């Protein structure tokens, strides 16, 4: 009887014992939107440093401050907006962050519409046309909402666009999914969100003066258990090799993109990225189009991934 009980407990506990290891485990707080590119970076990093494991704690950016405040754990921090990092810095959680150099990648704003562009949107001003169903982000819960307000105010159509709004999204994928399922006629999202829905949406670049560029920072945290390793990983994320990985997922990676004080583009540095994105959307929908570095730039893998299935997966 007792022997049996002991045996059962041993069987139950066996997998736990196997899991305890001596590897250095870096805890990385990262925005859930950066998942695909950071996973690639992690794979390369773990291959080169077999004694280290990178453990991502993917969450929406809004959760991080509460998480770090309470748990006081974590080695690196890469939220989806500089705002959250500055908040952490204000509270004294950030060990090392230099706003001049620690930006590995940028988001760029683009217009997306459902496949076939039913409301015939070609520029920002079309959002004000009566009857266009516009998806907006809630500025309190997602960064893209702040950019909607900024963009439409700069274009002078904020009042009309608000009247057209039929969706107030809590997070950016909600906008992508709404366009995919034809619940809205148009919205503005990051290029990195748009690239996830190449088969089901149309991508329309915004003219440079209304095109927003969003800084995506990375920093090491004060509570880091492995300070040296965390700094090394951060340096790797800022290296050209890692930037190239970000570029493959439609981030802008030019180290110097000229922007005004509000964050809008001053010239056409990001024009090539936008052209590639539009070409990629066409290539996923039409299998006969050639896919190579000339037609879609670094987005080749992304196009091939989405061509494999009707519903996106990897």
């Amino acid at each position, binding site marked *: 009887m007792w022997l049996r009980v002991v045996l059962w407990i041993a069987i139950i506990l066996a997998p736990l014992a196997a899991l305890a290891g001596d590897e250095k485990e870096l805890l990385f707080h990262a925005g859930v939107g950066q*998942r*695909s590119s950071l*996973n690639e970076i992690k794979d390369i990093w773990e291959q080169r440093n077999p004694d280290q494991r990178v453990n991502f704690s993917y969450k929406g950016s809004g959760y991080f401050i509460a998480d770090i405040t309470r*748990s006081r754990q974590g080695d690196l921090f890469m939220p989806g907006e500089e705002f959250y990092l500055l908040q952490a810095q204000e509270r004294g959680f950030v060990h090392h962050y230099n706003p001049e150099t620690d930006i590995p990648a940028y988001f760029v704003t683009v217009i997306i519409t459902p496949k076939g562009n039913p409301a015939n949107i070609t520029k920002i001003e079309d959002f004000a046309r009566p009857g266009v169903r516009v998806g907006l982000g809630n500025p309190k819960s997602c960064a893209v909402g702040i950019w909607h307000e900024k963009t439409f105010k700069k274009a002078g159509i904020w009042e009309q666009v608000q009247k057209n709004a039929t969706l107030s999204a809590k997070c950016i*994928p909600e906008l992508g*999914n709404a366009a995919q399922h034809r619940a809205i006629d148009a919205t503005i999202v990051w290029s990195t969100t748009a690239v996830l829905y190449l088969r089901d949406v149309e991508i329309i670049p915004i003219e440079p003066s209304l095109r927003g560029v969003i800084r995506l920072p990375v920093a090491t945290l004060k509570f880091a258990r492995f300070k040296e390793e965390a700094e090394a990983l951060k340096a790797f994320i800022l290296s050209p090799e890692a930037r190239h990985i970000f570029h493959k997922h439609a981030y802008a990676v030019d180290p110097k993109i000229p922007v005004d004080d509000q964050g809008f583009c001053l010239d056409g540095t990001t024009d090539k990225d936008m052209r590639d994105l539009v070409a990629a959307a066409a290539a996923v929908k039409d299998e006969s189009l050639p896919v190579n570095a000339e037609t879609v730039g670094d987005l080749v893998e992304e196009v091939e991934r989405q061509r494999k299935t009707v*519903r*996106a*997966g990897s």
Partner: protein
Amino acid sequence: MQNALWQRGTWWPALAIFLALATITFYLILIASNWIYLGLGDTFYFFTQPRMWQRFWLTVWTSTVSTCFSLIIGIPAGYALSRFSFPCRNVFASVIDLPIVVSPAVIGAFLFGITTRFPFDLISEHYNIYIGRNVYGVLLVQFTVTCAFCARLMKAAFDSIPPKFESVSRSLGASNFRTFFKVVLPMAKNGIMASMIVVWARAAAEWEGLMLFVGASEGKTDIMPFAIYLDWNGGMMGWVVSMTIVCILMAVTAMTAMRLIGGKSHVW
């Protein structure tokens, strides 16, 4: 004829059955439309990916382990609540109900603070186990959410067994311990098995607590409900829909098994 129908009130069972069937049809249509959206080719593609089954087995083994822990605590606790009277029994009964009525998000937020403080910090330091962002965190959340639930269901299972069998067993000279293992447990077997499956399904469906306390690292802590959330954020509708289907199939299997085993037990 119609008059007789109205007078005898047969319209009422007919309406009730119709509503029940309508509800079931509604859910079936939901599942079917999801599946049609995915399409046959994609179904085959996603269901043959190793990623799908890694997550499936992760879900299965974490919820199995946490169910086992819950049972180790839940069976004696449920028995105590059902049979013995001890000081503040009602207070304990209410406390044990807490994790059932409180949102799992609260449990996640609560665990958050506690694991970095005394005495848990000493335990994790001593064994060099880091509870939180790894599979231990998943187990802890699942255990916290299901343990009380388990005790509650076990109490119901033991309640359905008349206490006179125990008194007979004891009057014939068996000890309390022996009575429990040789008389009560075998009699409550069906109820316990049925409750176990419900507890397991509850553990496998846990998500909110994980979201707050553990966070997701791919391949390590993203059990199915969490993986659905992650892929939804990544715009991977194919994965979202196919994993939803697996989750529903898992739930249907578990509940059917419960009904088959539980028979007429009063657990649920």
